[in-house]
Protein backbone atom coordinates (compact mmCIF):
# COMPACT_ATOMS: atom_id res chain seq x y z
CA UNK A 1 0.00 0.00 0.00
CA UNK A 2 1.53 3.36 -0.94
CA UNK A 3 2.03 5.89 1.84
CA UNK A 4 0.45 8.65 -0.16
CA UNK A 5 -3.05 7.41 -0.76
CA UNK A 6 -3.92 9.63 -3.72
CA UNK A 7 -6.87 7.68 -5.06
CA UNK A 8 -9.15 7.77 -2.01
CA UNK A 9 -10.28 11.36 -1.59
CA UNK A 10 -13.72 11.90 -0.24
CA UNK A 11 -15.31 15.31 -0.58
CA UNK A 12 -15.40 15.77 3.19
CA UNK A 13 -11.73 14.89 3.61
CA UNK A 14 -10.69 17.20 0.78
CA UNK A 15 -12.67 19.99 2.37
CA UNK A 16 -11.02 19.32 5.72
CA UNK A 17 -7.58 19.41 4.11
CA UNK A 18 -8.63 22.67 2.46
CA UNK A 19 -9.38 24.01 5.92
CA UNK A 20 -5.75 23.47 6.96
CA UNK A 21 -4.66 27.15 6.62
CA UNK A 22 -7.28 28.19 9.15
CA UNK A 23 -6.45 25.29 11.47
CA UNK A 24 -2.77 26.23 11.26
CA UNK A 25 -3.48 29.89 12.03
CA UNK A 26 -5.84 29.02 14.87
CA UNK A 27 -3.24 28.86 17.64
CA UNK A 28 -5.37 30.16 20.50
CA UNK A 29 -8.93 30.33 21.76
CA UNK A 30 -9.41 34.00 20.87
CA UNK A 31 -8.06 33.74 17.34
CA UNK A 32 -9.91 30.42 16.94
CA UNK A 33 -13.19 32.12 17.85
CA UNK A 34 -12.51 34.98 15.45
CA UNK A 35 -11.59 32.64 12.59
CA UNK A 36 -14.37 30.14 13.37
CA UNK A 37 -17.10 32.78 13.43
CA UNK A 38 -15.78 34.54 10.34
CA UNK A 39 -15.56 31.21 8.52
CA UNK A 40 -19.14 30.36 9.50
CA UNK A 41 -20.43 33.69 8.15
CA UNK A 42 -18.38 33.45 4.94
CA UNK A 43 -19.28 29.81 4.28
CA UNK A 44 -22.97 30.39 4.98
CA UNK A 45 -23.01 33.44 2.70
CA UNK A 46 -21.37 31.51 -0.16
CA UNK A 47 -23.77 28.58 0.10
CA UNK A 48 -26.83 30.83 0.54
CA UNK A 49 -26.00 32.93 -2.52
CA UNK A 50 -25.35 29.78 -4.60
CA UNK A 51 -28.75 28.54 -3.55
CA UNK A 52 -30.73 31.75 -3.91
CA UNK A 53 -29.50 33.00 -7.28
CA UNK A 54 -31.73 31.59 -10.06
CA UNK A 55 -30.20 28.61 -11.89
CA UNK A 56 -30.85 30.37 -15.22
CA UNK A 57 -27.84 32.62 -14.51
CA UNK A 58 -25.54 29.70 -15.33
CA UNK A 59 -23.00 27.86 -13.19
CA UNK A 60 -20.11 30.25 -13.84
CA UNK A 61 -22.01 33.43 -13.01
CA UNK A 62 -23.53 31.91 -9.88
CA UNK A 63 -20.07 30.84 -8.70
CA UNK A 64 -18.75 34.37 -9.24
CA UNK A 65 -21.73 35.91 -7.40
CA UNK A 66 -21.29 33.44 -4.52
CA UNK A 67 -17.59 34.15 -4.22
CA UNK A 68 -18.23 37.89 -4.39
CA UNK A 69 -20.76 37.44 -1.56
CA UNK A 70 -18.18 35.47 0.44
CA UNK A 71 -15.55 38.21 -0.05
CA UNK A 72 -18.00 40.91 1.03
CA UNK A 73 -18.94 38.82 4.09
CA UNK A 74 -15.23 38.46 4.98
CA UNK A 75 -14.76 42.22 4.61
CA UNK A 76 -17.81 42.95 6.77
CA UNK A 77 -16.55 40.56 9.47
CA UNK A 78 -13.10 42.16 9.35
CA UNK A 79 -14.67 45.62 9.67
CA UNK A 80 -16.74 44.51 12.66
CA UNK A 81 -13.65 43.03 14.34
CA UNK A 82 -11.79 46.25 13.65
CA UNK A 83 -14.55 48.28 15.29
CA UNK A 84 -14.74 45.97 18.32
CA UNK A 85 -10.99 45.47 18.84
CA UNK A 86 -8.54 47.31 16.55
CA UNK A 87 -5.54 45.49 18.06
CA UNK A 88 -7.10 42.12 17.34
CA UNK A 89 -7.73 43.23 13.74
CA UNK A 90 -4.11 44.32 13.32
CA UNK A 91 -2.81 40.98 14.56
CA UNK A 92 -5.30 38.83 12.67
CA UNK A 93 -6.33 40.57 9.45
CA UNK A 94 -4.31 38.34 7.09
CA UNK A 95 -5.78 35.27 8.76
CA UNK A 96 -9.33 36.63 8.61
CA UNK A 97 -9.05 37.26 4.87
CA UNK A 98 -7.88 33.69 4.26
CA UNK A 99 -11.31 32.37 5.25
CA UNK A 100 -12.79 33.46 1.92
CA UNK A 101 -10.14 31.59 -0.09
CA UNK A 102 -10.42 28.13 1.47
CA UNK A 103 -11.58 25.04 -0.42
CA UNK A 104 -14.76 24.49 1.68
CA UNK A 105 -15.91 28.02 0.80
CA UNK A 106 -15.14 27.44 -2.88
CA UNK A 107 -17.11 24.17 -2.71
CA UNK A 108 -20.02 25.91 -1.02
CA UNK A 109 -20.06 28.52 -3.79
CA UNK A 110 -20.56 25.93 -6.50
CA UNK A 111 -24.20 25.78 -7.54
CA UNK A 112 -26.04 22.55 -6.49
CA UNK A 113 -25.92 20.15 -9.45
CA UNK A 114 -29.41 18.66 -9.10
CA UNK A 115 -32.71 19.37 -7.40
CA UNK A 116 -31.84 16.72 -4.78
CA UNK A 117 -28.60 18.56 -4.00
CA UNK A 118 -30.54 21.82 -3.82
CA UNK A 119 -32.96 20.31 -1.30
CA UNK A 120 -30.04 19.10 0.80
CA UNK A 121 -28.45 22.53 0.84
CA UNK A 122 -29.12 22.97 4.55
CA UNK A 123 -26.42 20.34 5.06
CA UNK A 124 -23.97 22.91 3.73
CA UNK A 125 -24.88 25.24 6.58
CA UNK A 126 -24.44 22.40 9.10
CA UNK A 127 -21.11 21.55 7.50
CA UNK A 128 -20.00 25.19 7.88
CA UNK A 129 -21.00 25.09 11.54
CA UNK A 130 -18.99 21.89 12.01
CA UNK A 131 -15.91 23.35 10.31
CA UNK A 132 -16.22 26.55 12.37
CA UNK A 133 -16.44 24.50 15.55
CA UNK A 134 -13.39 22.48 14.48
CA UNK A 135 -11.39 25.71 14.05
CA UNK A 136 -12.38 26.90 17.54
CA UNK A 137 -11.59 23.51 19.12
CA UNK A 138 -8.20 23.30 17.41
CA UNK A 139 -7.39 26.80 18.70
CA UNK A 140 -8.48 25.84 22.19
CA UNK A 141 -6.51 22.59 22.15
CA UNK A 142 -3.35 24.18 20.79
CA UNK A 143 -3.37 27.01 23.33
CA UNK A 144 -3.94 24.51 26.10
CA UNK A 145 -1.06 22.33 24.93
CA UNK A 146 1.28 25.26 24.23
CA UNK A 147 0.80 27.20 27.44
CA UNK A 148 -0.96 24.83 29.82
CA UNK A 149 -3.94 27.17 30.14
CA UNK A 150 -6.57 29.08 28.17
CA UNK A 151 -7.35 32.79 28.14
CA UNK A 152 -9.41 35.19 26.06
CA UNK A 153 -6.90 38.01 26.47
CA UNK A 154 -4.29 38.67 23.79
CA UNK A 155 -0.58 37.98 24.38
CA UNK A 156 -0.98 37.02 28.00
CA UNK A 157 -0.51 33.27 27.79
CA UNK A 158 3.18 32.56 27.09
CA UNK A 159 3.93 29.33 25.20
CA UNK A 160 6.05 27.70 27.87
CA UNK A 161 4.50 24.26 28.21
CA UNK A 162 4.80 22.81 24.68
CA UNK A 163 5.84 25.80 22.49
CA UNK A 164 5.81 23.85 19.22
CA UNK A 165 2.02 23.63 19.42
CA UNK A 166 1.76 27.39 18.96
CA UNK A 167 3.82 27.11 15.75
CA UNK A 168 2.50 26.12 12.28
CA UNK A 169 4.71 23.01 12.31
CA UNK A 170 3.10 21.85 15.54
CA UNK A 171 -0.34 22.37 14.05
CA UNK A 172 0.46 20.13 11.09
CA UNK A 173 1.98 17.43 13.29
CA UNK A 174 -1.11 17.63 15.51
CA UNK A 175 -3.40 17.36 12.46
CA UNK A 176 -1.42 14.33 11.26
CA UNK A 177 -1.74 12.65 14.64
CA UNK A 178 -5.45 13.50 14.81
CA UNK A 179 -6.03 12.07 11.32
CA UNK A 180 -4.21 8.86 12.29
CA UNK A 181 -6.22 8.63 15.53
CA UNK A 182 -9.44 9.18 13.60
CA UNK A 183 -8.47 6.41 11.19
CA UNK A 184 -7.77 3.97 14.04
CA UNK A 185 -11.05 4.85 15.75
CA UNK A 186 -12.99 4.40 12.49
CA UNK A 187 -11.31 1.03 11.81
CA UNK A 188 -12.16 -0.18 15.33
CA UNK A 189 -15.80 0.87 15.04
CA UNK A 190 -16.08 -0.92 11.67
CA UNK A 191 -14.51 -4.11 13.12
CA UNK A 192 -17.07 -4.13 15.93
Amino acid at each position, binding site marked *: MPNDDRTVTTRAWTAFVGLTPLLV*FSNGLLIGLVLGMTFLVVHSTASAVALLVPASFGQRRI*FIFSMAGA*MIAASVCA*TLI*RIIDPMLFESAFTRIFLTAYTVPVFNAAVVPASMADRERAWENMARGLGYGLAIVLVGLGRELMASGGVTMAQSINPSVFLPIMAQPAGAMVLLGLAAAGFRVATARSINR
Partner: protein
Amino acid sequence: MSIFGLAFYFTFGGNILVQWGVVPSARTVRAGSWGASLAFIIAAAFASVFDGLIFRYTLTPMGLESMAPIIFAIFVFGMYAALRAVFASLGKSFVDPFDERSFQMTLVLYAAAMMAGQCFSSVWLLLGGGAMAAFGYLAATRFLDAIMERLDLEPVPTAFRGAPIRYISAGLMALAFSGVDASFFARISG
Protein backbone atom coordinates in the same frame (compact mmCIF):
# COMPACT_ATOMS: atom_id res chain seq x y z
CA MET B 1 13.93 43.31 2.83
CA SER B 2 17.38 43.02 1.31
CA ILE B 3 18.65 40.90 -1.57
CA PHE B 4 19.35 38.20 1.02
CA GLY B 5 15.68 38.19 1.86
CA LEU B 6 14.85 37.80 -1.79
CA ALA B 7 17.29 34.89 -2.04
CA PHE B 8 15.58 33.37 0.95
CA TYR B 9 12.24 33.59 -0.81
CA PHE B 10 13.79 32.12 -3.93
CA THR B 11 15.09 29.12 -2.01
CA PHE B 12 12.68 28.63 0.81
CA GLY B 13 9.67 30.72 -0.12
CA GLY B 14 7.57 27.59 -0.17
CA ASN B 15 8.33 27.10 3.47
CA ILE B 16 6.42 30.26 4.29
CA LEU B 17 3.43 28.98 2.38
CA VAL B 18 3.75 25.61 4.12
CA GLN B 19 3.78 27.53 7.39
CA TRP B 20 0.61 29.28 6.26
CA GLY B 21 -0.94 25.82 6.13
CA VAL B 22 -1.05 25.74 2.35
CA VAL B 23 0.04 22.11 2.22
CA PRO B 24 1.21 21.21 -1.29
CA SER B 25 -1.14 18.80 -2.97
CA ALA B 26 0.30 15.73 -4.67
CA ARG B 27 -1.44 16.64 -7.90
CA THR B 28 -0.34 20.26 -7.92
CA VAL B 29 2.91 19.84 -9.80
CA ARG B 30 2.51 16.36 -11.22
CA ALA B 31 -0.56 17.40 -13.15
CA GLY B 32 1.07 20.61 -14.32
CA SER B 33 3.52 21.04 -17.17
CA TRP B 34 6.55 23.36 -17.12
CA GLY B 35 4.44 25.90 -18.99
CA ALA B 36 1.69 25.74 -16.37
CA SER B 37 4.26 26.13 -13.58
CA LEU B 38 5.76 29.16 -15.32
CA ALA B 39 2.31 30.66 -15.84
CA PHE B 40 1.60 30.14 -12.14
CA ILE B 41 4.84 31.89 -11.14
CA ILE B 42 4.05 34.83 -13.44
CA ALA B 43 0.50 35.01 -12.08
CA ALA B 44 1.83 35.04 -8.50
CA ALA B 45 4.27 37.83 -9.38
CA PHE B 46 1.56 40.04 -10.89
CA ALA B 47 -0.92 39.19 -8.10
CA SER B 48 1.67 40.32 -5.53
CA VAL B 49 2.31 43.60 -7.32
CA PHE B 50 -1.39 44.31 -7.79
CA ASP B 51 -2.34 43.38 -4.24
CA GLY B 52 0.67 45.09 -2.66
CA LEU B 53 0.28 48.38 -4.52
CA ILE B 54 -3.49 48.59 -4.12
CA PHE B 55 -3.22 47.76 -0.43
CA ARG B 56 -0.44 50.26 0.25
CA TYR B 57 -1.42 53.21 -1.91
CA THR B 58 -5.20 52.98 -2.09
CA LEU B 59 -6.74 50.95 0.72
CA THR B 60 -4.44 51.92 3.62
CA PRO B 61 -4.58 55.73 3.08
CA MET B 62 -8.36 55.54 2.87
CA GLY B 63 -8.65 53.22 5.89
CA LEU B 64 -10.27 50.51 3.76
CA GLU B 65 -7.90 47.61 4.52
CA SER B 66 -10.94 45.40 5.13
CA MET B 67 -11.69 45.56 1.40
CA ALA B 68 -8.53 43.59 0.53
CA PRO B 69 -10.25 40.25 -0.23
CA ILE B 70 -12.75 41.96 -2.53
CA ILE B 71 -9.96 43.68 -4.45
CA PHE B 72 -8.12 40.38 -4.85
CA ALA B 73 -11.32 38.71 -6.04
CA ILE B 74 -11.70 41.45 -8.66
CA PHE B 75 -8.12 40.71 -9.76
CA VAL B 76 -8.72 36.94 -9.96
CA PHE B 77 -12.03 37.25 -11.82
CA GLY B 78 -10.53 39.94 -14.07
CA MET B 79 -7.64 37.64 -14.99
CA TYR B 80 -10.10 34.82 -15.55
CA ALA B 81 -12.20 36.99 -17.90
CA ALA B 82 -9.05 38.15 -19.71
CA LEU B 83 -7.91 34.54 -20.22
CA ARG B 84 -11.32 33.61 -21.57
CA ALA B 85 -11.17 36.53 -23.97
CA VAL B 86 -7.66 35.55 -25.15
CA PHE B 87 -8.73 31.94 -25.71
CA ALA B 88 -11.86 33.10 -27.55
CA SER B 89 -9.82 35.40 -29.80
CA LEU B 90 -7.48 32.49 -30.60
CA GLY B 91 -10.48 30.30 -31.43
CA LYS B 92 -9.68 27.81 -28.65
CA SER B 93 -12.06 26.45 -26.05
CA PHE B 94 -11.47 27.44 -22.42
CA VAL B 95 -12.22 24.86 -19.73
CA ASP B 96 -13.76 26.27 -16.55
CA PRO B 97 -11.29 25.48 -13.75
CA PHE B 98 -13.83 24.58 -11.06
CA ASP B 99 -11.77 21.85 -9.39
CA GLU B 100 -9.80 21.35 -6.17
CA ARG B 101 -6.48 22.08 -7.88
CA SER B 102 -7.51 25.48 -9.19
CA PHE B 103 -9.06 26.31 -5.81
CA GLN B 104 -5.80 25.52 -4.04
CA MET B 105 -3.82 27.52 -6.59
CA THR B 106 -6.07 30.54 -5.94
CA LEU B 107 -5.36 30.22 -2.23
CA VAL B 108 -1.61 30.00 -2.90
CA LEU B 109 -1.82 33.07 -5.16
CA TYR B 110 -3.62 34.98 -2.43
CA ALA B 111 -1.22 33.86 0.28
CA ALA B 112 1.80 34.75 -1.89
CA ALA B 113 0.30 38.15 -2.71
CA MET B 114 -0.40 39.01 0.93
CA MET B 115 2.97 37.68 2.06
CA ALA B 116 4.94 39.66 -0.51
CA GLY B 117 2.80 42.74 0.16
CA GLN B 118 3.76 42.64 3.84
CA CYS B 119 7.49 42.08 3.26
CA PHE B 120 8.40 44.22 0.28
CA SER B 121 8.01 47.87 -0.61
CA SER B 122 9.21 48.46 -4.16
CA VAL B 123 7.47 47.20 -7.29
CA TRP B 124 10.45 45.10 -8.33
CA LEU B 125 10.72 43.42 -4.95
CA LEU B 126 6.98 42.80 -4.92
CA LEU B 127 7.26 41.26 -8.38
CA GLY B 128 10.28 39.19 -7.34
CA GLY B 129 8.83 38.23 -3.96
CA GLY B 130 5.58 36.93 -5.47
CA ALA B 131 7.43 34.96 -8.15
CA MET B 132 9.92 33.51 -5.66
CA ALA B 133 7.18 32.51 -3.24
CA ALA B 134 5.40 30.66 -6.05
CA PHE B 135 8.67 29.04 -7.11
CA GLY B 136 9.33 28.06 -3.51
CA TYR B 137 5.87 26.58 -3.22
CA LEU B 138 6.40 24.47 -6.35
CA ALA B 139 9.80 23.39 -4.99
CA ALA B 140 8.25 22.48 -1.62
CA THR B 141 5.68 20.42 -3.52
CA ARG B 142 8.50 18.53 -5.24
CA PHE B 143 10.31 18.02 -1.91
CA LEU B 144 7.18 16.71 -0.24
CA ASP B 145 6.46 14.44 -3.18
CA ALA B 146 10.00 13.05 -3.01
CA ILE B 147 9.64 12.49 0.74
CA MET B 148 6.37 10.61 0.18
CA GLU B 149 7.95 8.44 -2.52
CA ARG B 150 10.87 7.66 -0.21
CA LEU B 151 8.49 6.79 2.60
CA ASP B 152 6.83 4.22 0.32
CA LEU B 153 9.92 2.11 0.99
CA GLU B 154 9.56 2.36 4.78
CA PRO B 155 7.27 0.31 7.03
CA VAL B 156 4.99 3.19 8.00
CA PRO B 157 2.21 2.06 10.38
CA THR B 158 -1.13 1.61 8.60
CA ALA B 159 -2.84 4.34 10.59
CA PHE B 160 -0.27 6.90 9.44
CA ARG B 161 -0.36 6.07 5.73
CA GLY B 162 -1.80 8.65 3.36
CA ALA B 163 -2.84 12.04 4.72
CA PRO B 164 -1.46 11.68 8.30
CA ILE B 165 2.13 11.05 7.19
CA ARG B 166 1.79 13.81 4.60
CA TYR B 167 0.76 16.27 7.32
CA ILE B 168 3.54 15.17 9.65
CA SER B 169 6.13 15.40 6.84
CA ALA B 170 4.91 18.91 5.94
CA GLY B 171 5.05 19.85 9.64
CA LEU B 172 8.63 18.61 9.99
CA MET B 173 9.61 20.48 6.81
CA ALA B 174 8.05 23.66 8.20
CA LEU B 175 9.84 23.12 11.53
CA ALA B 176 13.22 22.60 9.87
CA PHE B 177 12.90 25.59 7.55
CA SER B 178 11.58 27.88 10.28
CA GLY B 179 14.66 26.96 12.33
CA VAL B 180 16.93 27.88 9.42
CA ASP B 181 14.91 31.07 8.86
CA ALA B 182 15.04 32.21 12.49
CA SER B 183 18.68 31.39 13.09
CA PHE B 184 20.23 32.40 9.76
CA PHE B 185 18.23 34.24 7.10
CA ALA B 186 16.24 36.46 9.47
CA ARG B 187 19.50 37.67 11.06
CA ILE B 188 21.11 38.38 7.69
CA SER B 189 18.15 40.11 6.09
CA GLY B 190 17.05 41.87 9.26
